């Protein structure tokens, strides 16, 4: 950057946390690189600030992001760009910065840059994307829908990565004829799907069973069968465990405790819970 030449602190581009805004920041990096300079670093505006940096917020421009995304996909390949998106979704500190560097290299070198795992940023891209994929896979099993009285379905999750955009296609293919929502309680976002339509990601979604219950005078908005089925599922879950092999450490290793709050089978005591 010309700034550095004048002894100014390094410019750091700040995105607002959305992938669109991140891409707009990446566009600046690519411009800088093509002008022959060193691309500036990119980080989230919400992240910790560096000591000697000159933060430059980047404006979010969805149209500009969409154009760049298309060009990146045709130049680096859909599979490479999917890795970039997955890494971004990991919400791992620094993953966005590494992803920005990775995009610049993908632009210059094509997909072969992905193999340079001795380079810290490329290795981080690989690890962060693997982490998102792994959690998306885990969450696609751990989603628990409840049937509401109006025949729609609601599930709450608390993933550490921003996995909703990664699991939308999976659930749409599986339950295409239903109205359902998967609510990320930590981020306040939700996947919402209506019968026959593509899923949409609502960035701020406020529905919880409890709120709904209060609004309707204390009665949970569940369908008549919901309670009995949850109970049946919990009894099933208890019955399949072989007592002589009991191994809570192994259980928690596969299914960490932070997910338990949203799993009926982990919150329905075996005896007299009705």
């Amino acid at each position, binding site marked *: 950057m010309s700034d550095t030449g004048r002894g100014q602190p390094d410019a750091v581009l700040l995105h607002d946390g959305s992938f669109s805004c991140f891409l707009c920041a990446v566009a600046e990096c690519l411009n800088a690189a093509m002008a022959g300079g060193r691309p500036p670093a990119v980080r989230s505006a919400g992240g910790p600030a560096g000591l000697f940096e000159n933060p430059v917020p980047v404006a979010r421009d969805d149209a500009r992001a969409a154009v760049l995304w298309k060009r990146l996909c045709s130049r680096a390949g859909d599979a490479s760009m999917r890795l970039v998106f997955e890494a971004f979704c990991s919400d791992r500190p620094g993953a966005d910065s590494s992803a920005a560097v990775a995009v610049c290299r993908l632009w210059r070198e094509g997909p072969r840059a992905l193999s*340079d795992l001795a380079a810290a940023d490329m290795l981080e891209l690989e690890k962060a994307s693997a982490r998102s994929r792994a959690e998306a896979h885990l969450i696609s*099993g751990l989603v628990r829908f409840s049937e509401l009285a109006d025949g729609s379905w609601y599930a709450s999750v608390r993933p550490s990565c921003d996995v909703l955009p990664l699991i939308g296609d999976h659930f749409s*293919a599986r339950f295409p004829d239903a109205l359902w929502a998967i609510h990320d309680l930590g981020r306040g976002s939700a996947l919402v799907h209506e019968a026959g339509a593509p899923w949409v990601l609502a960035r701020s979604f406020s529905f919880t069973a409890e709120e709904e219950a209060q609004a309707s005078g204390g009665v949970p908005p569940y369908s008549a069968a919901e309670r009995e089925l949850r109970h049946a599922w919990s009894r*099933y*879950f208890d019955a*399949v*465990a072989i*007592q002589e092999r009991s191994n809570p*450490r192994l*259980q928690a290793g596969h299914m960490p405790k932070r997910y338990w709050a949203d799993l009926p089978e982990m919150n329905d005591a075996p005896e007299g819970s009705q």
Partner: protein
Amino acid sequence: MDLAGKISILADAAKYDASCSTSGSARSNKGGVGNAAVGGICHAWSADGRCVALLKVLLSNACAYDCAYCVNRRSNDVPRTGFEPEELVRLVMDFYRRNYIEGALLSSGVIGCPDATMERLIAVAKTLRVRERFNGYLHLKAIPGASERLVLEAARWADRLSVNIELPSAASLRAVASDKTPAAIFGPMRVLARAGGFEPRRLPATSAQPAVPLQDSPAETPVSFHSQLPAVSHAVRDIRPMEGGADLPARASVMDARALRRRDPGAAVLPAGQTTQMVVGASPESDLHILTLAENLYLAYDVRRVYYSAFVPTGGDSRVPALAGPPLVREHRLYQADWLFRFYGYSAAEVLDPLHPNLDPSIDPKAAWALRHLERFPVDANTADYRELLRVPGIGPRSASRIVRARRLARLSPSALKGLGVVMKRARWFVSCSGTMAVDAGRVLDRPDALASLLRDGADTLLEPLQLEFAF
């Protein structure tokens, strides 16, 4: 009895079937509910740490047979119940819509005869597929002795079928489960192999096949199942030379044989093939015997998975040993050896031999192999091929392929290996980077016992206490 009570009994009766995988099928959703995910999805893990992916229940736990290892055996005094077919269909759909499960594994005690039982299972599967337009994962049990026609009918509706061998020799089968015969088990397995587009194969002999009477079955040499396996008499075609020297086995490893197979997860019939299970510890066979049989099943019938189920004594039958608890360490080591077959290119003959017929409980079988072959180490991460890398303790398929990718662009150093996911704590004794090692391995490489103590993983001490709790 209410629904939850029935579920408890019929799930309890089905839980000793270890099969939980839901992979291998790409069934798509054609205007109904559900689909299958090729990689499989786990939905929960029960208190014993096993994955819960399927509604695994029996249609009925009343059984006409009397297999000594089984909780549902005729002579065992337990409450009996069964689902109405309609009740079970509803339950699968209700659980599936809530995303509790990936599908169902439906099995049953033998009600009347094998064919009548098979027909009841088929009726449930067919209703799910046709009337409910359910495209989730269905795994059905083929009942030993069921006719070919019904096994094929079941294959039409299921993603996967399985027949459990349970006892790994004909002699043990006679002693422990006398209602079943090898023919009743291997007959349906052959039908299933063919239904999945695989012609069963005759296998060349291996050095691991017990040529001498097994030391642990003194009275009677178990009539090995190996002679039962070949269904047709044409030789294996897919033997190919393997890189890496003369001491490798003369027939294809399971990994190699599978790499050559073209499978179609989108196939209409039995996309996820067949699996089977062996009970471990209810009969006297050695690990070598069990693993050789498993390898043969992979190669001869294209079985997708062999499950090993530590025998859980269910009380009071003198035909099976009175164990203090399930042999979990043994089961764990068998699974590790099985992974070596499928993902690391090892053969049963490499993992064990007639002089060492049982796996060492204190060390994993890959490390044990490395200790017996120290002359092959250190392996150079910058030049070794993928398979040689896989044989280094601390390097798995993921880190091996990262090494192969990364070294195309840069020469690797020991510190780079760590970043690529190599467990250096184990690998440092066995791997070098263009001649440089992370430790002075020369000091230990000629002292296998010192190295062995460095490689112990503690699984035996972790799992053993679980058994002792139930020793009284």
